[in-house]
């Protein structure tokens, strides 16, 4: 009988504990984010974000180059910030700037009255030290500073950059990675890299580190920095909470019950369910994550420009967008909307008749010789998978047999870079996005002559295009309107030469509580929410 007695006691204990838990449960249910309280903390003061992956992969502002950007941009600031709505660079830690006509010498006026989270006042000397450290470490996106020859700080509020060649330094200084200004003396005499790696920060941003619990569900908490130069007179969120929620359905449930304020990513179907929900708002913004199909311009049937144009005209883009259910939108040119240099009315268009006649010119097409093409894409990306399938079925109508292969990114990339030309694919599907708000990123990386290839995976080489893009980038430093025109003309040339097909640009589909005011998606800073700029409201 003793055994039964013990079991009974255990059952009773668990039942009592669960009952007690269930009782608290009802009181602890967080409410919809409207001025109610939960356990004494006004819900309104906390802005909780739901992300699909781990946030803080790196802590070093010099070489952080991952998901951490979303938190870094709230703890750290850059000299300038790009506004994708106005397509202009705006002041942040720099109040104004000028450059010489050649764009090789830039002078930034540094904001005074800025305090680091370490308590030290920021001066021009700190700006110089930060960027120099980033350049020395030379990891992550540090290459953006490669035009810089030297940095001087003649007084406390002036920083002068001397460049090796002309470059738009105001744009570079607004980069989402590698452009943070931080207290290089934060660790005292100790090793600063180690100090950061242990989970510390030394920025000037509106929010400072509260707690970090790696691997935990609530991974990171930031709190308002009382001495922030922007001040706290207006209504702002006081705490920023980062939750890791890998499952979209779970994230949706958390948003619905008001336990998170903002969700990074839902699938289009789930996102759609929030559009008519009275407690939430949704936004849909074109991102700068462009999906390109790089066509092999040197080997195989696509080496002929007419075949490339035929392939471009043989894809049903509208049907594709429908299948993607709002997760993406058609892309005109290669530069996405919101970035200067974007060109209107240069969408690839579906014209099967044109495709057929182009193919017939070279002996292919329906009734002609069958064509075999190999297409590679990143395995596990369901959007790319869908695109590959649609391209395959569209081109089958043109007597083109596409063999599509889903691969790990690294394997796909190695194959594309293979020294053996016959190894390489015909169509390479991949995403490109810039590291700062400059259309040059697409041109220099994807379309500039490159041997051996690194990211120019259409193996495109056109001396005229090379020269024109270099001139345009030089012009960007002194005359942005002229540079815009030049980049737009270049896209026209690329459209005709067809080394790549602009398949689409991803859409950021966000859902958030109705009480979140002033939310704007800035594609220059992917998945970053500038929490200080938001207005907490009463639902």
């Amino acid at each position: 009988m003793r055994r039964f007695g013990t079991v009974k006691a255990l059952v009773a204990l668990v039942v009592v504990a669960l009952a007690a838990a269930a009782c608290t449960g009802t009181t602890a249910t967080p409410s919809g984010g409207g001025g109610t309280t939960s356990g004494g903390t006004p819900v309104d003061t906390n802005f909780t974000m739901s992300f699909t992956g781990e946030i803080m992969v790196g802590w070093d502002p010099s070489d952080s180059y991952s998901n951490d950007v979303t938190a870094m941009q709230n703890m750290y600031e850059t000299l300038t910030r790009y506004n994708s709505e106005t397509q202009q660079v705006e002041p942040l830690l720099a109040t104004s700037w000028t450059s010489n006509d050649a764009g090789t010498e830039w002078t930034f006026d540094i904001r005074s009255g800025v305090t680091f989270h370490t308590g030290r006042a920021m001066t021009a000397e700190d700006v110089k030290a930060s960027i120099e450290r980033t350049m020395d470490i030379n990891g992550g996106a540090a290459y953006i500073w490669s035009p810089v020859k030297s940095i001087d700080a003649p007084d406390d509020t002036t920083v002068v950059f001397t460049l090796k060649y002309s470059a738009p330094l105001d744009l570079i200084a607004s980069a989402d990675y590698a452009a943070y200004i931080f207290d290089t003396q934060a660790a005292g005499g100790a090793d600063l890299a180690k100090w950061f790696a242990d989970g510390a920060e030394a920025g000037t941003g509106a929010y400072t580190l509260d707690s970090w619990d790696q691997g935990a569900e609530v991974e990171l908490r930031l709190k308002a920095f009382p001495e922030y130069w922007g001040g706290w007179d207006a209504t702002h969120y006081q705490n920023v909470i980062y939750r890791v929620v890998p499952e979209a359905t779970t994230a949706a449930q958390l948003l619905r019950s008001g336990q998170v304020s903002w969700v990074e990513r839902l699938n289009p179907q789930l996102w759609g369910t929030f559009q008519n929900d009275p407690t939430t708002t949704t936004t849909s913004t074109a991102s700068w994550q462009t999906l390109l199909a790089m066509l092999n311009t040197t080997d195989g049937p696509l080496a002929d420009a007419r075949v490339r144009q035929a392939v471009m005209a043989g894809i049903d883009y509208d049907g594709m967008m429908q299948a993607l259910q709002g997760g993406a939108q058609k892309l005109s040119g290669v530069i996405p909307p919101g970035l200067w240099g974007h060109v209107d009315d240069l969408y690839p268009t579906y014209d099967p008749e044109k495709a057929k006649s182009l193919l017939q010119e070279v002996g292919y097409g329906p009734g002609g010789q069958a064509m075999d093409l190999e297409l590679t894409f990143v395995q596990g990306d369901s959007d790319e998978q869908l695109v590959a399938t649609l391209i395959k079925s569209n081109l089958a109508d043109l007597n083109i047999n596409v063999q599509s292969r889903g691969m790990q990114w690294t394997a796909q990339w190695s194959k594309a870079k293979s020294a053996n030309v016959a190894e390489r694919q015909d169509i390479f599907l991949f995403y490109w996005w810039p590291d700062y708000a400059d259309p040059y990123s697409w041109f220099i990386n994807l379309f500039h002559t490159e041997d051996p290839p690194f990211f120019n995976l259409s193996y495109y080489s056109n001396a005229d295009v090379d020269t024109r893009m270099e001139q345009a980038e030089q012009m960007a430093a002194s005359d942005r309107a002229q540079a815009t025109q030049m980049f737009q003309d270049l896209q026209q040339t690329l459209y005709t030469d067809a080394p790549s097909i602009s398949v689409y640009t991803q859409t950021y589909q966000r859902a958030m509580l109705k009480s979140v005011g002033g939310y704007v998606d800035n594609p220059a800073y992917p998945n970053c929410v500038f929490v200080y700029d938001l207005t907490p409201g009463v639902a």
Partner: protein
Amino acid sequence: MTLYVLRRLAQAVLVVAGVVILTFVVARVVPGDPAASWAGPKASQEELDAIRARLGLDAPVPEQIVSYFAGVVKGDWGVAVHTHRPVMEDLLDRAPASIELVVVAMIFALLFGIPCGLLSARWNRRLPDSVVRFGAVFAVSMPSFWLALILQLVFFQKLRWFPVAGQYDPNLDYTHPLVQYTQMPIVDALITGNWWVFRSALWHVVLPAVVVAAYPFGVITRMVRASVLDTLGEDHVRMVRALGFSERSVFAKWTLKPALNPVIAVLALVFAYSLANSFLVESIFNWPGLGAYAAASVAALDTPAIVGVTLFIAIVYVIGNLVVDIAQTALDPRIKLS
């Protein structure tokens, strides 16, 4: 006894080594470049070369395995490619959450599985037996992610009885901060007397634990039933019955104890199985355990992390079995270790 344990440990080392070699080779044979995963999508060639040298990826695979073992012996399980941290640290951070979940699930499974098995055996081939047997088959065959989603829908969205995800209400960190010792909120809250977090944590663990418990519950129920029926046919039970003892005491006194032995044997296997099975459940309930870590490791082709997780599970399996074998001798004098 000591000799037996030593021999079993030696066998265990061989098993674990085999598992590691297999995982290592499979992870390395898959095309892909861990250095590119480490450096991010836009790394330069120089960066890639430097990282490859630093991670020892330029050495041939057998050499990498040897140096990996040399490290494992010294407690160095390599550095994870996707977190840039030592694998051992990553595992120690995440394993407690998984273990907490599985332990709670095992308690659920035992608390409900043993009585259900007894019930089933007591009324063999009658209505209670059919109901329990159906329940057990249902619990074992139910896909865990499906069960998880259904429970969320019913008990969170419709009834609001239990929370949808997480370990405890994150707002409590502002009002009643939890001091962490074991990384298991239920345990930490209990030892620090933080009743707010304790209640919230218990409330949060119920749904995921029920899902994880489904499979062990089914196995234990069937095992108890079969084992009790077996014992009921033995001579000593027939004698006890002939002497006129009540059915109740026949079951409680003379049948259950010998019948529990095979149940305990299966427990270790079910525990380790549940640990791996909980991966999917963890991601649905946002439970910060090994599951999400394993998934991210596979996606990043992170060999050290994949091998680390595998090694961890293999060790749990092996130790679990050993502990059960030893425990059985303590419970049943008829079993001898040899």
